[in-house]
């Protein structure tokens, strides 16, 4: 059996946590960017005389 010596690493939980929530945040940002682009098109249309 291999013995692993390691100290408690408070950063481990943060690392794996980012991987878990990362996809949802990427999707949320994508939706936000998409919405901004769509609303910009409507704003441009409204500004036209």
């Amino acid at each position: 059996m291999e013995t692993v010596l390691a100290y408690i690493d408070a950063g481990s939980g943060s690392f794996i946590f980012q991987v878990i929530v990362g996809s949802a945040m990427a999707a949320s940002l994508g939706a936000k960017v998409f919405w901004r682009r769509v609303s910009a098109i409507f704003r441009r249309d409204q500004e036209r005389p």
Partner: protein
Amino acid sequence: MTDVPIAGSFRDPHGQVFTRGGLVHRLVTAEGARDYEQLMGSGLYDALVSERLLVEHAEVDDPQVHAVDAAVERVLLPAQVPFISYPWEWCPGQLRAAALATLRAQELALDHGMSLRDASAFNVQFLGGRPVLIDTSSFGVRPEGDPWVAYRQFCQHFLAPLALACIVDVRLLGLLRAHLDGLPLDLAATLLPARTKLRPGLAVHLHAHARSQRRHADDPGTRSSARGRFSLQSFRGLVDSLRGAVSGLEWEPQASAWNDYYDAAASYAPAAAQAKESLVGEAARRDRSGHGLGPGGEHRPLLPVGGRARCDRRRPGSRPVVGGDVLAAAGR
């Protein structure tokens, strides 16, 4: 001229800081040179400086230092910060502004293939009233697929104390003095009211994050298993989500005996008020950092203590009023 190492500069051996002739310098070792070249060559440095997010520097031609230490590649002379302040001395608006500056710097870094290795509040100072990152060597080439190594630090240094100050009690910012590595997230999660679990930003970055830390604290394989699985889009999403969480935190000053100290109460005779204005105005002229000073209603130029409660108020459509804004408002 003798180089004097700064005792507090020990965490990053590739970008240590020392003073020479009273001026702070930073050295870049051969191992830190790759990151430095990327910072300068990718256009990131110019982008950061043009947005006034990073302290400017000049490279110093110094054959003497190369002779003494062959590992030193460059010597930088950054713009000097005349007044060092600490996060527990800031009002919530300053901490918030510093957090948003850090996130904006990280966003620009991602655009240029880099990432912040540190997201410490100690890396931010206020120059002319604006938050500026002072650690030039905290930018590193982003390891492809790695999560943000400074995510936990950002939450501990910025998000947790800001949430506690804005939602529970502003005096809790003093906890930063006891926790120099930032507020432990489990402590912040315990101190925050249960209703904060309904705020998406805090629910994720503080409460769930603290639980994840507890769960994986004694699991040494977790960190390596997370490597290579974090896309650039996820990284951008994380930074955007953090910005949303920080932006949603605003401090509302509570009623205090100091609120109307100058306006309502006849605390000073006119002559005494005039003398105090002159005294504080003179101090502000000498030290343009504006720390600990704030607008005192009709009593401009500047009044301390009572003004501190107001320094977090924002003008509609503008950035937080801090330091130099106060000086600008006073026409200095």
